[in-house]
């Protein structure tokens, strides 16, 4: 066998190995979490709130954290959408290609992306104190939304950038304004990508512990209004793992399994949904 073919084979094998490691990691995480949490996984885990001990009950379930996380992440993602979509449309439809403002905005978003979530938590806390709020679902939603905005904006930005100029011109040439072109053509063309961007942000939001620590707080109860504190799954895992009781630590893995499955289900749902909207997309 000649040398070039050998080199080709070597590098190809390396690439396959790397790919295997990545997929293996996912499998390994899922298996570990489910394996270790299985003994504690039960119907009551997902249908009851904790019983028998402040925060760290050995009985009951973590419905408080499941619902708390869902409320928080859904609220934050909705709020982040409201902020991100106008920014991205402004950057791509209204700004000129080499506009200073657009460059500055993209740079700011990249910097914001890199800021650790605990800093968002601290910032959210400062805001809360300023407005005289206590830990609450609302404070958590606002903080997580801030965390999600750069992720969502940049993900959607990359997709909308790819819309051909000629497609926008086709709309303009029919007498459409920039706004009409954005809403009826650009967003439609990018819908699958936009959904993916929203989903990535949602995943970050629901999985983040540090930003909600001081803002959403933690409670055994299910929040019934925006003003009440809310439990979240990452914090539930954090607290449960930190206890000296093996039964409670086992429950931490069950919580982790639930969080992982929750994200998986939402990803699959979003994919199925977005497929229904890709019908008209121009390739």
């Amino acid at each position, binding site marked *: 066998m000649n040398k070039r073919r050998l080199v080709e084979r070597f590098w190809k094998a390396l690439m396959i190995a790397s790919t295997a490691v990545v997929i293996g990691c996912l499998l390994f995480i899922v298996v570990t979490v489910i394996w270790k949490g299985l003994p504690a996984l039960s119907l009551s885990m997902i249908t009851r709130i904790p019983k028998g001990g402040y925060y760290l009950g050995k009985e009951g379930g973590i419905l408080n954290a499941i619902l708390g996380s869902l409320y928080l992440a859904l609220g934050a993602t909705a709020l982040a959408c409201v902020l991100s979509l106008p920014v991205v449309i402004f950057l791509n439809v209204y700004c*000129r*290609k*080499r506009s200073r403002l657009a460059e500055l905005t993209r740079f700011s978003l990249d910097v914001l992306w890199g800021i650790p979530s605990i800093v968002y938590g601290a910032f959210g806390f400062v805001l809360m104190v300023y407005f005289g709020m206590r830990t609450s679902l609302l404070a958590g939603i606002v903080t997580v939304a801030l965390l999600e905005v750069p992720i969502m904006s940049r993900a959607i930005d990359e997709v909308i950038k790819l819309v*051909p*100029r*000629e*497609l*926008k*011109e*086709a*709309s*303009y*040439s*029919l*007498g*459409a*304004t920039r706004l*009409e072109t954005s809403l*009826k*053509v650009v967003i*439609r*063309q990018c819908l699958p990508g936009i959904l993916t961007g929203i989903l990535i942000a949602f995943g970050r939001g629901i999985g983040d512990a540090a930003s909600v620590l001081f803002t959403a707080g933690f409670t055994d109860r299910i929040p019934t209004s925006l003003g009440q504190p809310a439990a979240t799954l990452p914090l539930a895992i954090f607290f449960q793992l930190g206890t000296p009781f093996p039964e409670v630590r086992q429950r931490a893995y069950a919580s982790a399994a639930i969080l992982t499955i929750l994200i998986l289900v939402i990803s699959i749902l979003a994919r199925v949904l977005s497929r229904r909207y890709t*019908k*008209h*997309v*121009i*390739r």
Partner: protein
Amino acid sequence: MNDVRSHLSIRNLNVFYGDLQVLKNISLDIPDRKISVIIGPSGCGKTTLLKSMNRLLDHVDEVRVEGEVLVDGEDIYGPNIEITRIRKKMGLLSQKPQVLPMSIYDNIAYGPRIHGHRDRKRLDFIVRNYLSAAGLWEEVKDRLHHPASRLSVGQQQRLCLARGLAVEPEIILGDEPTSALDPQSSQRIERRLVELKKDYTVIVVTHILRQARRIADYIVFLYLGELVEQGPAQDVFANPRDPRTRAYLTGEIS
């Protein structure tokens, strides 16, 4: 050209991209209800000239436009011009057909809806009428609600033509409208354009000389951003006055 009314005229048009001047002092009267063809080698400013007519140039970075483009006697670069109204007067066919990401029906209805038509029956009529005018109705009448992106490229270009007609323009602009099409589809588009000149003023940019000979009533020859020669097609083809036009027509420069 005094016998022909012209509702699109250009007066002393200069266009710059940054420091580069791409159009030099162009003055031009486009004859009404005829096919005017803009010819010239690539990079001579043909597309720029066309895009200056419906102000799509506005969307190009660092562009500067001087001079006047008069549509029905009104300078479209003047102050207080409502650009959407100007563009509504012109349908555009681009080099590569650009269908919108929606159904065949919605592609045609897009323009009329934007301009305030809501009545379902009226929209149905518009869709049928202009798809027929573009010679596409028979091929798509049973799948109006399928995605437009599934049509062949040739059908897509006729869809774009129908979509442009649906906003009831007076002028049709074509930017090398057949360059992405196979010979048969090209021929169809050409035939449509010839039919449409009864009711519309048609302006087409092309780099295909044979196409210009087939469809042109009036020829505009651009070379390096300069308007070298313009006149009725037979005259220009039979008797080019400028040596550069002659050289281009005989294939010495391209």
